[in-house]
């Protein structure tokens, strides 16, 4: 009986150790991007955006003329980034740049917005958002691996801190807290 328990705990330790090593990278990717995406209301987690507002004298230009629009874009230093522009019904000119946009009001108020991908974080977020079918399978395997880590983890330790003693309190707390949130959000 004692031999059987030892063998069983041995294999749980092996699984927990080796699966833990294997999933280290994925855990970091999903945790960091998870925190970033959790606060998506407060910031853009994948792009750094820089906004600038300036005024120009539009009386020198015809905002209906493409050549004049491109002249303005050149004055703003963005000629090489120009893609296209359109004129809205309200007379505003929206210029699309390679990594940004410019909005020019008829009164000469100009808003320039440029964006750059956040190094590393943008790529982590891209993976977190499931870029394709193959990744879906791999991330399902990751989720299954986390379940394995959880199940093997609660049986790793013997004695005072085991799942039958102090460990049970922490485990139950980890279940009860999300249930409390659920109760308050759903009611």
């Amino acid at each position, binding site marked *: 009986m004692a031999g059987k328990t030892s063998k069983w705990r041995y294999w749980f330790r092996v699984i927990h150790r080796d699966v833990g090593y294997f999933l280290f990278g994925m855990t970091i990717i999903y945790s960091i991007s998870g925190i970033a995406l959790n606060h*998506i209301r407060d910031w*853009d987690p994948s792009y750094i955006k820089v906004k600038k507002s300036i005024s120009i004298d539009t009386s020198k230009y015809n905002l209906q003329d493409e050549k004049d629009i491109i002249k303005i874009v050149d004055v703003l230093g963005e000629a090489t980034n120009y*893609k*296209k522009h359109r004129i809205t*019904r309200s007379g505003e000119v*929206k210029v*699309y740049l390679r990594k940004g946009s410019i909005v020019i009001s008829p009164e000469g108020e100009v808003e320039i917005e440029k*964006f750059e991908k956040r190094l590393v974080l943008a790529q982590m977020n891209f993976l977190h*958002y499931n*870029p394709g079918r193959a990744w879906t399978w791999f991330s399902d395997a990751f989720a299954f691996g986390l379940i394995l880590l959880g199940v093997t983890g609660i049986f790793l330790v013997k004695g005072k801190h085991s799942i039958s003693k102090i460990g049970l309190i922490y485990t139950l707390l980890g279940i009860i807290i999300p249930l409390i949130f659920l109760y308050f959000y759903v009611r």
Partner: protein
Amino acid sequence: MKNVLLLILIGFVGIVSAQKAVKAPVIKVDNFEAKAGKYVDKKVYLTGLCDHVCKHAGKKIHLVGKNDAMVEIMAGDIEKFPKELEGEDLKVLCTVMEERIDAKYLDEWEKEVKQNHGEGTEECKNNVAEINKYRDQLKNSKKGYVPSYYAEAISYEKI
């Protein structure tokens, strides 16, 4: 023998390519509102300029036409739209969807807007103004709802 195999290969590639091309009407964004009712739950190609890619994971784009008409296209089968699509002319294969906006929908929308944006903010005021426009349309609607059309993307290409 080699020529026969080559012909079979060409034929196979042709059949596969033909199967991939979907037959669907092409609609410009400017005409979408007028024609959408006929194509609910059906596939169409929508063409227009990509004005905006939603910052929330690129799950939505705004396609605009020449007269400021705008159609909201949800990512659907596409995992996400890259931000670099802003300013590109697109041809999007999509399914036309209809949202039936009734009084209950508008009340819930207003509640959500006030919760998410906070009462008194600029964004809240703009959203509430749009909600009130729908309420005015609802008063004149014989169906008891106002149809609002959008699309769910299947694939897209730059044109």
